[in-house]
């Protein structure tokens, strides 16, 4: 018997569970829960005076870049965007704080989803040190409070495997299809 400890510095992940993916109740429940986590309405029309749609696009692009460069789990970015939108739907925010908010949202999403989450220090470096770790931690509490600590949002990513499973797709193309969605 192999007695060597073969633990490596890789992250062990569970294989997709067909029992979860084939059960319509799971999909049904995801759809129900999803509604609870959708931002109430278009905040550019009401809550936000300073922030414009193009600014959201800019911060989103930056967040995606950080997530990709840090090789974050795929669900981190959409989850962080969900936090960002939900926060902006209720709190009037200055545009100078938008990147800070984006960083906090990635910070939280990464903590919830990843084995080795992004550190405050790393995130601050990605803002070119325009924010300080201390600010990030203070805003973390603010964001958590405004989101009522409800972090387990359902994101579009959660549906991918369920949909793929229900489509008549050729086995050999599956990896490619997943990549493109």
């Amino acid at each position, binding site marked *: 018997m192999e007695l060597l400890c073969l633990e490596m510095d890789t992250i062990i992940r569970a294989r997709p569970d067909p*029992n*979860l993916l*084939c*059960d319509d*109740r*799971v999909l049904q429940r995801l759809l*129900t*829960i999803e509604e609870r986590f959708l931002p109430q309405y278009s905040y550019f029309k009401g809550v936000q005076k300073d922030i414009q749609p193009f600014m959201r696009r800019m911060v989103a692009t930056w967040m995606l870049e950080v997530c990709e460069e840090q090789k974050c789990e795929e669900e981190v970015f959409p989850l962080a965007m969900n936090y960002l939108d939900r926060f902006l739907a209720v709190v009037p925010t200055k545009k100078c704080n938008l990147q800070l908010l984006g960083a906090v949202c990635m*910070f*939280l999403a990464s*903590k*919830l989803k990843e084995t080795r*989450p992004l*550190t*405050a*220090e790393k995130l601050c470096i990605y803002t070119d040190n325009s924010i300080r*770790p201390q600010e*990030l*931690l203070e805003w*973390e*509490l603010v964001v*958590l409070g405004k989101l009522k*600590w*409800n*972090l*387990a949002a359902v994101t579009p990513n959660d549906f991918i495997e369920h949909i793929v499973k229900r489509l008549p797709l050729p086995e050999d193309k599956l990896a490619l299809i997943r990549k493109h969605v």
Partner: protein
Amino acid sequence: MEQYSILGRIGEGAHGIVFKAKHVETGETVALKKVALRKLEDGIPNQALREIKALQEIEDNQCDLKPANLLISSSGHLKIADFGLARLFSEQGERLYSHQVATRWYRAPELLYGARKYDEGVDLWAVGCIFGELLNSSPLFPGENDIEQLCCVLRVLGTPTQDTWPEIVELPDYNKITFKENPAIPLEEIVPDTPPQAISLLYKFLVYSSKQRCSARRALLHPYFFSSPLPAHHSELPIPHLGGHPPRQRLQPPSLDLSVDLPLQNNVVDPTLLQGHATCL
């Protein structure tokens, strides 16, 4: 924190200390967990965030009451399990999903009419279904699909009216489907040869209006539990075989060649051999 007064310490784990406390305003007893912030530079520990997520999920979930989720421990205690998403590992692939069907049989009528908001009444309905099944040794409402499930319930309880079920008009699927009107069938006919006290208790659970179903606490005071046969102490219950697998021979029917020519003793079956096969023992 000012909202709570600490009553004592419950336990201590790797990530923090748990206290027993009282919410001053409501008097509700709660557990408070004090989480150690060991790595200050990374803010709220992900452990804590995930624990909160888990607690929210528990709060969300109604337990899925059905016979398959009721276990009797080796000490005779009833345990409610939820194998909602677990599957029996079976070599016959086609049996894997059978539990999905089973869950439907215990689903409260408001859920069948698409209710989004529901309460503990759905569990009380399931309790009624399970109680009836125990009395009858077969499920009360074995619907093959959701529509048929409603039919099964309506056939026994009678088509609901504004009187028997005032809330029905607010349910999402109320207008989507109508059933031929039929009167209720007395439960005595559905669960024959059952003592009147048991029937009376069953009537308390199998009520259309969720609010009118008998609460678990009140049900325990029902005369059924105070009339013969009285409830058994858990130590008196027939319990599952200790130590895992029962002896092999019990799985096969006792093979005995009964013959009138042999002495009587040879023809008497050892009762222990029959336990798995005869429900009367």
